[in-house]
């Protein structure tokens, strides 16, 4: 039974992206009221697995780093994948002898760990964590498969580009603003604009809910200094405009337009994406 992940992050294997994974985990922890010590365990183990990809998978270069977070009835399953040569099961023992502590840390903190060689296309570390606060969200269902933005399958090749998919909505509400705020901080936004980015993320999550063609929300982010470009979807026909209109505060106009510098609705294959551009120019 291949569970559909509640959160999928498609990143480049840059050290600074591991922070985004931790922010997503913190958001998830908030949603399911996870004990802070258990969050610390999960966060530490997952960071070790990600750092391993950052340091070893691509021989010093950057390549795709994918993280799937799934809520199970009794805990969490998290998979960290690369398309290169990350941790191999037989190397894990060698690493222990050699003085590395990444693998022992993961083994000590997760209840179950699998290292999979993805037949020449990469490596996957799959960790299961039992948690005391039973997740209150339903695990994502089959039809919720992240089916996502156009080009969503293209591997992330650039450090300035990333994609993430989150569902169902209560989880998106906690995860999307956190991840986007962290990106705004990385893009050298002022604290004013970081907060605006959170407000914008809140509005997107709330208003897109009824307009998505899946129960997961996908966001693609292109990051430049003082500049964020967001693509949000997958929205049904005509729904981009509906989202913009719905995010209107009485007497104050459309919020998404106020908070962003510009916006457009792009159509591809019958689906729409809402593209928002945020900058911080002083």
């Amino acid at each position: 039974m291949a569970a559909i992940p509640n959160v999928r992050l498609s990143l480049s294997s840059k050290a600074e992206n591991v922070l985004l994974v931790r922010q997503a985990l913190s958001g998830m922890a908030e949603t399911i009221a996870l004990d802070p010590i258990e969050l610390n365990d999960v966060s530490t183990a997952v960071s070790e697995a990600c750092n391993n990809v950052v340091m070893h998978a691509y021989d010093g270069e950057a390549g795709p780093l994918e993280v799937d977070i799934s809520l199970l009835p009794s805990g969490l399953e998290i998979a960290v994948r690369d398309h290169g040569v990350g941790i191999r099961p037989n190397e894990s023992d060698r690493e222990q002898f050699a003085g590395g502590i990444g693998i022992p840390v993961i083994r000590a903190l997760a209840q179950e760990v699998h290292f999979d060689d993805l037949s020449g296309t990469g490596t996957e570390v799959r960790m299961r964590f039992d948690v005391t606060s039973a997740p209150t969200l339903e695990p994502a269902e089959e039809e919720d498969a992240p089916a996502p933005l156009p080009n969503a399958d293209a591997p992330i090749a650039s450090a300035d580009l990333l994609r993430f998919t989150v569902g169902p909505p209560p989880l998106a509400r906690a995860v999307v603003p956190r991840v986007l705020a962290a990106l705004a901080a990385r893009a050298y936004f002022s604290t004013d604009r970081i907060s605006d980015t959170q407000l914008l993320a809140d509005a997107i999550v709330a208003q897109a809910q009824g307009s998505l063609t899946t129960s997961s929300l996908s966001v693609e982010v292109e990051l430049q200094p003082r500049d964020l470009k967001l693509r949000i979807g997958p929205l049904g026909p005509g729904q981009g405009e509906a989202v913009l209109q719905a995010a209107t505060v009485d007497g104050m106009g459309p919020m998404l337009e106020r908070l962003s510098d510009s916006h457009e609705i792009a159509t591809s294959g019958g689906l729409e994406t809402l593209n928002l551009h945020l900058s911080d120019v002083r």
Partner: protein
Amino acid sequence: MPGTAFAASTPSIIPGVTEDPRELFLRWQRHGDASARDALVKRFMPLARSLARRYGRSSEPFEDLLQVASLGLLKAMDRYDVERGHPFQSFAVPTILGEMRRYFRDSGWAVHVPRGAQERALKVRDAQERMANERGHAPTANQLAEYLELDGEDVIDALQAIQAYETVSLDAPRPGADDDAGAAYVDLIGGEDERYELVELDVTVSSVLGHLPPRERLILKMRFVEDLTQTEIAERIGISQMQVSRLLRRSLDQLRALTHEPGEAR
């Protein structure tokens, strides 16, 4: 530390710890040889240090965490069974992490926001105000990190914490309020609320907006009608930008909840 993970296991290049750890464990565990114990501590302290750094994640003072990790290391050295042939690390890592977990439990870490995190959130809030005043515009997270000599991630977490824990920003003393004990934000807000009642809003107070207190309506209007930055709003109202941020977020959530029934697609 790239490159160290797969480095050759022996011999150690650390001066004074070139001896075979197996020998050292036997000398310590069977004969109580203190010099062997010292050599083991020296050899494996980097492991404890590294775990304290990785597992602690800065919510507690590093020195405290290191002390706890060292205690875990000593326990692991006493209990490790050389004869079983497993490397010491694979036994020591869970022991040390277990010790740190216990410490977190005992210090109430699971119930409360860690003290260190709270203090840091306040520092970030205060520094934000100070820097915004000095420069006339809000600082970036990086500038705050540099100013406070914090990790960038700590600042991001602090910004989140202020959103999440209302009491952190509301009940804390205002900066420079030492001689004016007890003057917290809550008091000032309470005092100023009456003034807001007198403010004429040109915004049509629709039935939905009417559910919000006047101060919240004013902040919304300043941000979305007058297009002021949060820092400018903060100055005019006399609260912190972080609080403006939190109030805006909460107000907009309330408005959404009032406008749309859950699940209604509009």
